[in-house]
C-alpha cells in the first residue's frame, strides 16, 4: 500500500529556532494536512491544504506556522520561532480527491524544543 513519508522522525531544536518538517504525500493525492499530538493528548488538526492554498486552519496555526508545497512531491510545515509548547508529534496526512474519505497518515515527526 502507498505510504506518506515524513522526515525526520525526530527533530531536536533550541527554543527560538526555525524548523521545517517535511512530508511526501501519496503521489496522486490532492489534499494535505498537518496534525499534531502533544504527548498523552488527543490528535489536533493544524491545517489543510488543497489546490496550492490553505483551505482551513485551526487556532493553533498562528503566524509562526506556515505550509508550503515547493514542488510536486513535498509538503512542508515551517515553525518560524519554536516555543517549548511546540514540542509534539507532528503528523502529515493526505487523501485523494475521489472520495471514500480515507486519510493516510505518515509515521510522524517527534519535535522536541529545548
Amino acid at each position: 500500500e502507498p505510504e506518506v513519508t515524513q522526515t525526520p522522525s525526530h527533530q531536536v531544536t533550541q527554543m527560538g529556532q526555525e524548523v521545517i518538517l517535511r512530508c511526501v504525500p501519496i503521489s496522486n493525492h490532492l489534499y494535505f494536512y498537518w496534525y499534531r499530538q502533544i504527548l498523552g493528548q488527543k490528535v489536533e488538526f493544524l491545517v489543510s491544504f488543497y489546490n496550492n492554498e490553505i483551505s482551513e486552519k485551526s487556532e493553533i496555526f498562528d503566524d509562526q506556522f506556515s505550509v508550503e508545497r515547493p514542488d510536486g512531491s513535498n509538503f512542508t510545515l515551517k515553525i518560524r520561532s519554536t516555543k517549548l509548547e511546540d514540542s509534539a508529534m507532528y503528523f502529515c496526512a493526505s487523501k485523494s480527491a475521489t472520495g471514500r474519505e480515507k486519510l493516510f497518515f505518515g509515521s510522524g515527526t517527534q519535535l522536541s524544543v529545548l
Partner: protein
Amino acid sequence: AQTVTQSQPEMSVQEAETVTLSCTYDTSESNYYLFWYKQPPSRQMILVIRQEAYKQQNATENRFSVNFQKAAKSFSLKISDSQLGDTAMYFCAFMKLNTNAGKSTFGDGTTLTVKP
C-alpha cells in the same frame, strides 16, 4: 463545530475476550464519516475501521466491528477475540463529507490493554 467524546480513558480486557470502546459525537451535519484509529506505542496512526453516516449497515473489518447509532450519535468499536497486539490507544474521529478542508476531529482516546 464538531465534538467527539470518548468517555473511557482506559480499558483492559483478557486475551481472547471481547471489548467495546465507546464514542459519542455532536454535529449538525447529516453527511459525514466516522473512524477508529489505533495508535500503538510506536505512535503510528493506523486506520482500523471507517463508517459512512449514510450507510445503515455497521462496518466490519475482521475482528473489528462498529455499532453505529446515528440518531443517538454513538459510534462504538467492538474488538472480538482480543489479541496482545491490540494493546494501543484508540481514537474515534469525525470528518465532514466532501469538503475541501476534510479535517478530522479526534476524541481524547482510550488506552486499551490486552492482558495475557
